């Protein structure tokens, strides 16, 4: 196990290094740079002034020098300066991470709390009215774009309550924060829960046809014990995988929701930074997301061992 962990950690470092090169190169392949954009809000471009700004920002340096400068800074914990706000990038990124993290966790909790039990119910009551209803709901969760759902929720709140549940900073209480975030989290979690529900259902259906389930029933185990202790435990591995993938992709998936509900999180900020070609922000944020994905994958792999004793990561 120890050797496996070391191998995994090394692999993670290699993956992150590859990601850093990819991010850096791809970002510079996009047409236009920050100087074009700085001048855009002035409605003209002055080539001499543009060159001067490029020099100030180090954009006139060879790309390898720029990469080494960024990566060595990153290793020292220096993320550089944001081009647009002219503030340290860390000051721009750090306050936004908890906002998105809270939203992502809530959305994930929503998807698991609804997706798993409803998936089990749907499988247990296969081909009943309840099963059909849950399948329609899950299908709608996968089909409805989250921005449309978000707007619909906002319209409904304004129409029925005369109040709009958009983000407010400094609400003063954690409970209020969570209540306000729970609405967009539900809008995002609805899609994930639909995915989890469908996967749980199909996985459960497969497991429930196994001999050991019949044996459990023959032994006189209660229906909930059969469904949850015997069936779900064996059906949960693919569900955990999909939850892991969803968790990793949630940050990207939150872009639209953060825009519609006006939440100042990292997802929306990343899109804006890409639009502004704010390289220090984009590079560091994408690296952060890459680390989240890599670590989540690692955690999911470790969870397999906990959930299924047959799995062993030995050489």
């Amino acid at each position: 196990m120890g050797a496996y962990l070391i191998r995994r950690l090394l692999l993670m470092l290699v993956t992150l290094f590859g990601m850093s090169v990819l991010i850096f190169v791809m970002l510079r392949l996009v047409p236009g740079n920050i100087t074009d954009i700085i001048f855009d809000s002035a409605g003209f471009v002055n080539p001499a002034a543009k060159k001067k700004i490029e020099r100030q920002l180090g954009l006139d340096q060879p790309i390898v020098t720029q990469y080494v400068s960024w990566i060595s800074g990153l290793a020292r914990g220096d993320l550089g300066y944001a081009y647009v706000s002219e503030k340290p990038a860390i000051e721009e990124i750090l306050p936004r991470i908890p906002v998105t993290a809270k939203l992502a966790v809530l959305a994930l909790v929503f998807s698991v709390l609804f997706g798993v039990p409803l998936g089990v119910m749907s499988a247990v009551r296969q081909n009943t009215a309840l099963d059909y209803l849950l399948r329609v709901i899950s299908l709608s969760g996968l089909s409805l774009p989250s921005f449309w759902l978000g707007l619909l929720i906002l319209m409904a709140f304004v129409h029925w309550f005369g109040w709009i549940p958009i983000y407010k900073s400094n609400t003063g209480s954690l409970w209020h924060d969570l209540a306000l975030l729970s609405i967009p989290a539900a809008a995002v979690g609805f899609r994930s829960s639909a995915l989890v529900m469908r996967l749980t259902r199909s996985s459960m259906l497969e497991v429930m046809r196994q001999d050991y389930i019949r044996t459990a029933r023959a032994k006189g185990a209660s229906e909930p014990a059969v469904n949850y202790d015997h069936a779900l435990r064996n059906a949960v591995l693919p569900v955990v995988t999909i939850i892991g993938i969803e968790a990793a992709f949630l940050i990207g998936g939150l872009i639209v929701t953060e825009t519609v509900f006006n939440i100042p999180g990292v997802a929306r900020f990343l899109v804006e930074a890409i639009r502004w070609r704010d390289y220090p922000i984009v590079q560091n944020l994408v690296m952060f997301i890459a680390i989240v994905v890599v670590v989540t994958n690692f955690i999911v792999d470790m969870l397999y061992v906990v959930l299924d004793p047959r799995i062993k990561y030995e050489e």
Partner: protein
Amino acid sequence: MPLKRALGCVLVTAAICGSAVPALAQKSGGTLRIYHRDNLPSGSIHEEATISTVQPFMGVFNNLVIYDQQKKLNAPETIVPDLAESWAWDASKTKLTFKLRQGVKWHDGKPFTAKDVQCTWNKLTGKDNDDFRKNPRAIWWHNLKEVTVNGDHEVTFNLNRPQASFLSLFASGYTPVYPCHVSTKDMRTNPIGTGPFKFVEFKRGESVRFARNPDYWKKGQPYLDGIEWKVIENRSTRILAFVAGEFDMTFNADVTVPLLKDVTSQAPKAICELVPTYVSTNLIINPKAAPFNDPKIRKAMALTLDRKAYIDILSGGKADISGVMLPPPEGLWGMPPEELQKLPGYAADVEKSRAEARKIMESLGYSEAKPLKIKVSTRNIAIYRDPAVILIDQLKKIYIDGELEVIDTSIWHAKVTRGEYSVGLNLTGVGVDDPDVNLYENYSCNSERNLTQYCNKDLDALIDKQSQETDAGKRKQLVWEIERKLAEDLARPIIMYDRAATCWHPHLKGFVLHANSIYNNWRFEDVWLDK
């Protein structure tokens, strides 16, 4: 149209006769909540050419003079003192001396002096070591020779030649006085002014906050404790938030004609005013790109424009057909409809014009079977794309087969400046309703913001001539002569001047929306909340 003109006349009369807002007992306190439509580039008004910066930050500063915030029209008669208590021209009309207000302090406590004025204009004219990173209105001050100070409270602007509207340039929201002791870099991120509101905080993508300046030189003002701008990029969300009462006011001109119906039906008590934005939708043709170097093709393109169709489709018939200057009743210098119709491409009978255009195209070898294939470039924003699509449809009528090429919004100006387009659809905003601002900025050979790089030395001479003419009537005739010349040269055919609404809830008092500029009425020192 007659009804619109009649309404305009009432508006003009009201504006000239006096204050548009009856005096009420103002209440102090409260925070004004406004949404912002996008992420503003910086807090330095002098470095930007966008309402996104001027609207929130104008309250931080003072000008030397300013357009009366309580009058709807910006005109020479509505210019009032600000940091300058008075001003006077010398006999040669080339020296303008301002007597400055005493006892005014910057937000950091340092005293305001004539040196600050000199410093600001030295930066604007490129004579200061700590110059602006970008200087979009440098052309405004091309006639300024130097600024001299006479003690701490008097400053003289020395011009190369007389300039009739020189004072108007100082009255714009784009012309604040900056402190000498604060670097241009700091002015972008942490601006210091003498104005009614102090800058508190700018959280990128989230909010901008300002607090009341307790030491403001206008005693008792401002009435508000502060202003909070919240950035909401999604238009549906922000309009819903305004309807729900989350905000006291919308962002300027954010409510389009179709949206206006929604807002007024969902918030029937909201006050919404539909005014010209002074942003023109215009056709840009690259005269250096073949075959558009042939004036005949450019003429044919101008003849196919059906401006009324644009206006009906895009603004429900509310926008205005115009030349370069904003048309009356709100515009002070624009041509009336009867004069406009005499310009090439403005005839009421569009089909007749198109028949003439087709003949031109046929003489050049194009036909329905052999159309001219082009790309119509535009910025990837709806307000650019939509008219570009109509343009493509109208070009088809004269054997021009256009394909829409949407350019990433961030590199639009860079591409146009480099001439990497043949035909484009562009939008141009004008800061002050004055010929000097519009003509020098967009059509003079030396302007960096002359996007098409149209250059006609005779026209430049004519622009200089109107600039020096002090008789307003004679000047208007010269401006119209320039309009005719620009239309003949197809310098940048103006398709329309759009209108859009700004809305606020009735508890917001003391605010007057200007009718002939969107850039000059955001001081907010007279605004109060009746809550």
